[in-house]
């Protein structure tokens, strides 16, 4: 499956309460930490045993020394001694119970978190390898959700979901068996009501699931809009649209609130409903138990034990619906996460990738055709070459496809027809990171990360020493920018480099590209927001620094491209003209017209 024809509506995945296929896949992730889960299960078994033991001790005490003393079968001193023995045993159980209840939280939490971490790291790494088309079709906010709350939901599957559910079910079975062993009549009463209890719980589950889904969907919209307004706050304020965006946000809050209230009604009804059912069971038990007590068929202590077991039985059944919902949410998240993990990037390394030529290399576009949206071609029958060491410039009207060519040269996309080759080898035969690492890229819309200037320039690339960094700073004229910052190279930039001017950001992006000593440098309007003097200095210094390297330069400002070895003029995705500056001018075509427009009267 290619990444492009995928449905971006992952948000709508509903999930089943149990999905064996997903479950088995999840178990793969849990397997390396199997012992964590074994320990968790043991803790739960221990807790249950302690609970049962406690109830049993109450009965032993009541029916033992107390009853015997009451009936005059046991002298007081003896009864007291026996009471103390039971109390001591009970204290032991209680101690064990409390000790284990520490692990109930700590151990289950730990087991979930170790799996979350593994899965999250793997998922993130996988996502970064996916195609740009995939990213462009999805809001950043929802992608963030995949590696945060979705993965956390998965952890719930292991902790409060599956382990506890399996255990709860086992508990119910054991308790019912015990009830039968205790008193058949009472046990029958309870089992007669149990389906009602389960029914109420499951009925609730359906509504709650719908409710939660609605709430989540509204919340996602709310947060997405907030995030967007925050990044465009300058536009919002300059247009004085604070109230309008506020009203729109309030409009999104409204259905969120309504969905929450609907879910609330459901919850508010559920608890009393379960409560009434439990009371009915208790009432019936009292009725039948009362008669048995009166006839002496049932000992008082047995009744107390029964009462305890009943309370213990109700909890897991009441929680059943909720557990199912946790499972369902977890499976929905698992579905979304695995769907991503199953997405194979179309742009990936082939089996046994070809070695990327270490130096030089001719980059050739052969009859390339490409469309972002099928049926709306952006590039058509495009052929040109950039020989090793050559500087080629791309000019053409806005929207002509220049940035798209840069994208293809780095294999951000593959051409639909034709091919792009490096030294005669199709780019599809290389591993993309290796191919790209040899290039230096400055995007039209570049991006700086939060962190120090140095981190931004290095991007974690090994082998860039301070001298190389200095050279890059000089060549890109970014030295002044860095010098102005408090802390120089170690000054911290904020999100997207927001505290720098646009041109300053571009200079840093150029420095970042040069620092890697690239074989091919791609400059997409890299100096569009830089003044001409600086631009000329950069051009000169870059030439010196990258002597003998290839370059692809995109620019509207024709003074930027004049010095190129060859200039390609693009028109609506096709190559219109090619040649040196002088040749093109002499030809008197599109380039000459653009040139005249720029330098003669703009009103012409």
């Amino acid at each position, binding site marked *: 499956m290619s990444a492009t024809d995928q449905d971006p509506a992952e948000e709508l995945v509903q999930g089943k309460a149990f999905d064996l296929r997903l479950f088995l896949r999840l178990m793969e992730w849990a397997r390396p930490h199997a012992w964590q889960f074994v320990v968790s299960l043991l803790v739960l078994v221990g807790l249950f045993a302690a609970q049962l033991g406690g109830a049993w001790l109450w009965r032993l*005490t*009541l029916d033992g020394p107390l009853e015997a003393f009451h009936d005059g079968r046991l002298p*007081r001193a003896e009864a*007291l001694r026996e009471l103390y023995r*039971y109390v001591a045993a009970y204290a032991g159980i*209680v101690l064990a119970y*409390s000790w284990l209840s520490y*692990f*109930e939280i*700590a151990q289950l939490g730990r087991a979930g978190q*170790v799996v979350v971490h593994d899965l999250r*790291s793997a998922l*993130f790494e996988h996502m*970064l390898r996916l195609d740009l088309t995939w990213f*462009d079709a999805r809001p*950043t906010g929802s992608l*963030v959700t995949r590696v*945060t709350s979705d993965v956390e939901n998965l952890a719930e599957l292991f902790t409060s979901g599956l382990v506890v559910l399996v255990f709860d079910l086992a508990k119910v079975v054991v308790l019912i068996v015990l009830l039968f062993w205790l008193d058949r009549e009472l046990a029958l009463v309870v089992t007669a009501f149990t389906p009602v209890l389960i029914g109420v719980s499951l009925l609730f589950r359906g509504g709650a699931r719908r409710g939660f889904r609605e709430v989540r969907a509204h919340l996602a919209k709310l947060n997405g809009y*907030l*995030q967007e*307004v925050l*990044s465009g*706050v300058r536009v919002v*304020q*300059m*247009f*004085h649209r604070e109230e309008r965006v506020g009203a729109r*946000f309030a409009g999104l809050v*409204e259905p969120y609130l309504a969905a929450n209230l609907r879910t*609330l009604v459901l919850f508010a009804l559920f*608890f*009393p409903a379960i409560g009434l059912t439990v*009371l009915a069971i208790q009432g019936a038990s*009292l009725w039948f138990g009362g008669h048995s*007590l*009166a006839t002496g068929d049932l000992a008082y202590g047995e009744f*107390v034990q029964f*009462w305890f077991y009943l309370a213990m039985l109700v909890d897991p059944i009441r929680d059943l619906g909720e557990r199912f919902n946790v499972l369902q949410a977890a499976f929905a998240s698992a579905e979304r996460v695995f769907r991503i993990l199953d997405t194979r990037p179309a742009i990936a390394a082939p089996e046994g990738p070809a070695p990327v030529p270490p130096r030089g290399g001719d980059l050739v576009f052969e009859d390339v055709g490409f469309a972002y949206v099928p049926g709306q071609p952006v590039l058509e029958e495009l052929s040109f070459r950039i020989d090793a060491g050559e500087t080629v410039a791309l000019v053409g009207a*806005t*929207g002509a496809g220049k940035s798209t060519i840069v994208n293809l040269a*780095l294999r*951000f996309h593959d051409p639909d027809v034709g091919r792009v080759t490096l030294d005669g080898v199709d780019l599809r035969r290389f591993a993309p*990171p290796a191919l790209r690492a040899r290039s230096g890229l400055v*995007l039209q819309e570049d991006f700086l990360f*939060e962190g120090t200037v140095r981190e931004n320039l290095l991007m974690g690339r090994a082998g860039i020493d301070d001298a190389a960094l200095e050279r890059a700073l000089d060549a890109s004229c970014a030295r*002044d920018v860095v010098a*102005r910052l408090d802390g120089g190279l170690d000054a911290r930039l904020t999100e*997207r480099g927001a505290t720098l001017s*646009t041109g300053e950001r571009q200079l840093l992006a150029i420095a970042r590209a040069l620092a*890697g000593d690239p074989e091919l440098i791609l400059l997409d*309007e890299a100096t569009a927001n830089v*003044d*001409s*003097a600086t631009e000329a200095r950069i051009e000169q210094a870059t030439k010196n620094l990258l002597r003998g390297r290839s370059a692809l330069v995109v620019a*509207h400002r024709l*003074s930027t491209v*004049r010095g190129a070895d060859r200039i390609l003029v693009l028109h609506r995705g096709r190559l219109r003209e090619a040649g040196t500056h002088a040749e093109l001018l002499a030809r008197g075509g599109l380039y000459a017209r653009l040139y005249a427009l*720029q*330098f003669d009267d*703009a009103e012409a």
Partner: protein
Amino acid sequence: MRLLVRFYGRFLRYKARLAIGFAAVAATRVTDIAITLVVGEALNRLKAGEAPSFLPRLLAWFAAWGLAQALFSFLQRWCVVSASRFVEAELKRDLFAKLARLDFGFHDRTRSGDLVSRLTSDVEAVRMFLGPGLMFALGGLVMVPVTLVMLARREPLLTLVMALPLSLMALSFKLLYGRLHDASLAVQEAAGDLSHGAQENFAGVRVVKGYGREEHQAARFAEVSRRNRDDQVRLARARGLAHALSTGTSQVTFVVILLLGGRAILDGRMGIGDALVFIDLTMKLFWPVLTLGWIAGLYPRAVASAQRIEEVLGRAPAIVDPPGARALTGFDGSFRFEGVSFTYPGAARPALSGLDFEVPAGSVLGVVGPTGSGKTTLLDLFGRLHAAQGTLRMGGERQDELTLASIRAPLGYVPQDSFLFSDTWRENVNLGADAPLSDERLAELARIACLDEELARFEAGYDLRIGERGVTLSGGQRQRTCIARALAREPQVLLLDDALSAVDTETEARLVRHLRAAGAGATVVIAAHRLSSVRHADDILVLSADGRVAQTGTHDELVAAGGWYADTWARQQQRAELEEL
């Protein structure tokens, strides 16, 4: 703590709900105890050997109390939680409104992901604590004295001893508070780092991939994830400890009941039939105490969250309507800068200093200068996006005495970074207009912005969906959409911040022609690097690298005068070369 009290004021707007809810919580407890007493009476009478014929009457009582309890338990949840949901919605709206108004000094330095989490998890923590948390705990506590009295009637000593585990629990929470607080803060922070890291890498995925740094970035993210895991584990341990202590104390109480209850029975002070009531009552006494433990667990988080919310709500935007602000009326489109300077908060040097110039109504002002000389900052000042020193006059009136609405209403602004919303093309342009635009008007705007041909090529036309920040458009298409958006408000003043940098010269020439026609009579301010964009301006301001006005004049004057402008012009023109040909 004081903060939480203040936030509680928001709940008090729902007095009726809160009052009913509070009463219902208490009533639920009362019915609960009543039920226990009914059961106790039945068992006692049975134990005393009475015939079970009295059972139907008692069971009728049992049913009545049960129904009452169901009603109250519905009411308590509905009233209390719905009030908390209303408060949540209100808090979200208020926070959003505040964020939209806060100045750049704040936004530039705050991670957007962090702000999002204030609106989500922090609001949730406060809602949970002040709403259901507080109500259930307090409502439950109302019954503690009643239960205690009832227990005391049966076995005074027992009651006394019961106070012991209770105080033990209080003590242990006091001891654990710091640990819980620190651990939950650490988790909160690590979670923030996590979503920030993801957000940044996804938004900048072109750069990550362009440099082949996928593995490196993934390793960094894994490191953050590992830290988050460790913090989570630490928090789970702290929670486990708190949980163990509270179960421990409640369980110890049962030991005490068994011991003292057993003795009381052996001493004949308590009927054996009372044992069950006793156990049940103690459990019910403990329920509110346990919720108290639960709410104590929420408390540290709620305090931290309240602080984070207040940091936003309590922050005064640096730019607001001054007291007694007037609306700007009869604005002719003229501006005057009198000794205006501005330094970004935290910056070492001023971005602009000593600006003195005039922009006559309907004139065209060019702003040029080297990178980082303050052009964008200067354009910001026209809309009072920063609080500058000195005096800026709009139509003769001091800008800092006018309402922001009236300052910004006449402005059409095209930002340098061509920011667009991920919405349709139509909605993006509509943002500029006061009312949704007709298709005819949109067509007109598309034509002026030289976008008509390209839009016609897209199937969806004006309803073309634009990706986040406009990623699915070319650079020039983004920029021209921004121009259409600015023109949509029929501006008196058009502010173009390097707004023609991403279009080819042919489109630029057409655009300039269109803009001139469309903006006839409007004041236009053009910041640009390409001097061809400003050469026809009535006046050109040349900024120096340190944010001062180096030169002013018309194009011809500046070219003649020599200096930065003339040099740049020569460079861009390369007249010499032209003549060679």
